[in-house]
């Protein structure tokens, strides 16, 4: 048994959410998905370890959940959209996660994003036909 290789495997700094990730982290993603429900969120808060057990989240995955190690969960195969259901209400945005991946502060990460728009007006003018305020 072997996982099929893909062209996207060698894109640097990139983890494509495919069968390989979805398979291993299935119980973890199922737990994250369950947090759509407010009652489940309360149950999780009251006893995270028991909640993990109920969803079959064990071993390293369980440790990551109990430690609220969002970055670790992503690396272990949590889907980013599913992780957001746990991370965002706990004050960790996707930008915080992105910054941690790069080992920089969220403020620096946001500054890098803002810099993408620095010369936007000139770029759009060069292209022509774009609305420009």
């Amino acid at each position, binding site marked *: 048994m072997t996982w099929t290789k893909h062209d996207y495997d060698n894109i640097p*700094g990139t983890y494509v959410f495919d069968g390989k990730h979805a398979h291993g982290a299935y119980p973890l993603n199922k737990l994250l998905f369950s947090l759509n429900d407010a009652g489940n969120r309360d149950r999780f808060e009251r006893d995270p370890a028991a909640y993990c057990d109920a969803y079959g989240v064990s071993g390293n995955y369980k440790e990551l959940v109990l430690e609220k190690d969002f970055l670790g969960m992503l690396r272990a195969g949590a889907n980013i959209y599913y992780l957001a259901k746990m991370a*965002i209400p706990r004050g960790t945005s996707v930008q915080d996660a992105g910054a941690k991946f790069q080992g920089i502060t969220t403020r620096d990460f946001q500054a890098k994003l803002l810099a993408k728009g620095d010369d936007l007006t000139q770029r759009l003018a060069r292209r022509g036909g774009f609305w420009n305020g």
Partner: protein
Amino acid sequence: MARIIGGVTSSHIPAVGNAIANNQTQEPYWKRFFDGYKPAQAWLSEKKPDVAIVVYNDHGLNFFLDKVPTFALGCADTYHNDDEGWALKPVAPFKGDAQFSWHIAESLIQQEFDICTCQEMKVDHGFVNPIRALYGTHEVWPVTTIPLAVNTVQHPVPSALRCYKLGQALRQAVESYPEDLRVVVFGTGGLSHQLQGERAGLIDVEFDLDCMEKIANDPQWMTRFSNSEIMRRAGTEGIETIMWLVMRGALQSNVKVVHKHYHVPISNTGAGVLVLENYG
């Protein structure tokens, strides 16, 4: 006969819904982004489409990873928004048109697009935010909607070419419906962004601008890319841009470009609005 009057694209970033809900649309960060929707809003209010077919991806509200349909069509009279885990107040339900949906489903399956039909379908920010940005927020929405979900979350996801062909089949499906309905197709999501990994924060402005120009005037350009090539340029989450091709495939080969708006960054993303109109 039903006919497609045009197509509109919009990114569907979660933060857009928050900005609307918190009345931040005229704050400096948001103003240019939202102001660029005004010509699209004006076009919709002038053309008054009866039905909007909204092409979007679910982010874990209606679908979980236990069952992941590549293409799924809403076939209900009502679609509800719900809590995505962030405890935000859901927006008012959307009116559907089950008869029209089932006609589209039949036609697509006859054309060998073996889609999943959904009689219950919760719609998440991917569907809701473009509608809010294009129509404002309403207790009774001013347009009937049909959700068409594309899997862009768990690979394998369909190719850009397949999405384009789905759009062509969708046009056939709409145009064979006997009722006189004016239909608009919304292609949502994108443009370039990557949320995870050491490459998080990737935005490729030139690629985004190429996409907007080519999707309007030379959509075959994008259908030649593999998904790996798109993700290499536009980021893992930028793959959502393939949904714009469903919209484009549903239009005539030559279209009138009514409006083109690009803003960067919104949250982690390059955000684009296109309004394309069919001739005649």
